[in-house]
């Protein structure tokens, strides 16, 4: 460490995507997907991801999304065929439907792994690919058993469970054959949970008390009071989420590294993040979802601006260990059957 530290380069992530530019790309791709009955969506996904990756720069170099539309299209076709079979067969005979659903359940951990693996392997930075090395057993433990444990302990163990899941995911990501190392502590997750819970309870009580009084004493009738209470609850929701997210995000980044290759730091602040999230939500509601591309750009820009990456000398010596011929089926099947991996 000592000899290399003088060559360490630390800077924030640079995100150069533009809302207007991305909006056009997003909208035109959506249009082309619709009129080609979804076939173009494979191209759309590639172009969309290439845009977001390409505009994300660390140490002057951008990320690359290497999947080809055909890989994604093939995965999608397989998923669609299975989905049609499931719909038709379960209408004809519910028993077959149940058997298929059970089979899907058994295949789920494998699909989760394939999905993460695909998106990791298709991500490259400086010509070196990422990968994911999770196992069936590991996914069962972290995505099935631990959440059950969290639930039966009346959610007392949940912060620990969430920490274990995220640590499992990050520890199994590799870059150029080297494992990411996540040394997070469950304590921070408990702090984040307690903080946000406390603010939620306190804020909730305050809004209920003051709001009730305001509604009762308002001479103009209860409607204005109700609006104010609604807005206050909306703001409280944003703040509570932002408190939790910012504590967790900063902690994860501070404890994530690849030895002698890269380490991270993050300074996400609660209030700016809460403002970002609430304005994002408002934008989406007001524009009936048309602001989604704008929201994605705003969020990416903010997260990049609060995240610092330290590049260490070892990065120059990495060799790509991943060949890129996976099928996108896992990710697509999981997507079509609506099993998202978002934990928090």
């Amino acid at each position: 460490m000592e000899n290399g530290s003088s060559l360490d380069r630390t800077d924030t992530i640079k995100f150069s995507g533009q809302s207007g530019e991305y909006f056009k790309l997003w909208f035109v791709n959506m249009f082309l997907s619709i009129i080609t009955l979804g076939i173009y969506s494979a191209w759309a996904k590639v172009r969309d991801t290439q845009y977001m990756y390409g505009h994300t720069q660390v140490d002057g170099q951008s990320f690359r999304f290497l999947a080809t539309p055909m890989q994604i299209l093939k995965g999608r076709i397989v998923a669609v065929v299975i989905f049609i079979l499931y719909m038709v067969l379960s209408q004809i005979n519910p028993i077959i439907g149940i058997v298929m659903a059970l089979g899907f359940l058994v295949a789920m951990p494998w699909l989760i792994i394939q999905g993460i693996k695909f998106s990791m392997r298709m991500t490259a930075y400086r010509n070196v690919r990422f990968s994911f090395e999770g196992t069936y057993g590991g996914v069962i433990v972290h995505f099935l058993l631990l959440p059950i444990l969290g639930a039966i302990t009346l959610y007392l163990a949940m912060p620990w469970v969430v920490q274990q899941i995220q640590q499992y995911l990050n520890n199994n990501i590799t870059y150029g054959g080297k494992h990411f190392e996540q040394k997070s502590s469950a304590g921070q997750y408990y702090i984040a949970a307690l903080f946000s819970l406390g603010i939620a309870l306190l804020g909730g009580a305050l809004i209920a008390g003051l709001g009730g009084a305001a509604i009762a004493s308002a001479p103009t009738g209860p409607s204005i009071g109700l609006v104010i209470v609604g807005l206050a609850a909306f703001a409280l929701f944003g703040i509570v989420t932002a408190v939790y997210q910012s504590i967790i995000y900063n902690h994860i980044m501070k404890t994530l590294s690849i030895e002698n290759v890269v380490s991270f730091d993050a300074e996400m602040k609660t209030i700016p993040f809460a403002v970002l999230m609430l304005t994002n939500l408002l934008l989406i509601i007001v524009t009936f979802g048309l602001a989604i591309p704008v929201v994605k750009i705003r969020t990416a820009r903010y997260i990049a601006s609060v995240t610092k990456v330290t590049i260490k000398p070892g990065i120059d010596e990495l060799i790509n260990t991943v060949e890129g011929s996976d099928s996108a089926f896992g990710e697509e099947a999981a997507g079509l059957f609506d099993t998202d991996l978002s934990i928090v």
Partner: protein
Amino acid sequence: MITIAGNYQLAGRSEMHPASAKVYDTGHIIIHHENGEQIMDSWPDDYKFSDVIPGLAVDLQLADGALFIPNDNRFRWPQLTSNNLLAEWLESHWLVVFSSILIVPLFMWSMINYVLPGAAHAAVAFLPDSIAESMGQQTLYILDKTQLDPTELSPEQQQRVTKTWQRISDELELPTDKYQLHFRKFDLGANAMALPDGSIIVTDDIVTLMADNPDALLAVLLHEVGHVEHKHSLKMVAQTTATTMLFAMMFGDIDGAGELILGAGTGLLQTAFSRDMEREADEFSHKNLPKFNISPAAFADAMTLLLSSHSSTEEENAEDSEGDIRSTLSHWLQYLSSHPETQARIESAKQAGDERQRESNDSAD
């Protein structure tokens, strides 16, 4: 010849060097290291370009996997064809955005009104009868377990209905191994249902309701036969599947939009399909009633009777006479009627009756 400054990224490793590329009119490209040393000499067959994305540099991809990345994000290689540049062109013009706002609704409208129903009907013709049989048996089994009870009608009452049914069966030459009449008690009131395999269920209440008006009951039974003859249940399954798939394919990739459009869109379309099918079954009934020397107005009588019985019990849910798949599909159906408005159905039955009247007058003259 042009010279482009950029970075040379070695194949399969993170090492990279500042470099410059000389591009000749012949397509010949030579890359030099910053210190002047030549790194790569490449001809058009040995290189290609990365996708052209708005605001991003286009990488030169060399045969061995090495990359040359121009420093200027706006630089576009002279070798790029208009095919390479088409997507970027579309994605960077507001005109394209605005014209797509016009095209999408038109496209959707024609898909929903013409392409999907057509495709569903065509597909149904290829389905073997065994599918309809199995669907019908399953549905009857589930209905018996959940909503239906054994009939409490007297044998005489059943006998009268069976006779009416026999008239239909004989007159229309229905295959007896396919069509079966079932009596069931149903708590939600007067109703008749057709299952895809040809099982026709009449509830105790509808038999009692139409005891004095066998013509009305015959009209209702014809309506149900119409459902079976037109393979409505199968078409519904095919259409639902096709619509869900279409929507999932078209919108599945759009964040958040997928669920919203899938839920609301297919639900609304479902009721539209259902209404069309009811209308078709009504027409079947109107068309065939004269074969029994009954005016289509008998169907209007049946509707009036049903309307009065249901409005007296306030059971809107029982309006859904195809208890099979449709009732289990989604709760949307409870909010948006799956049947054409009863008053309209009565009117059109009366109209069919009047026309019939005129026709017979004409032939009498």
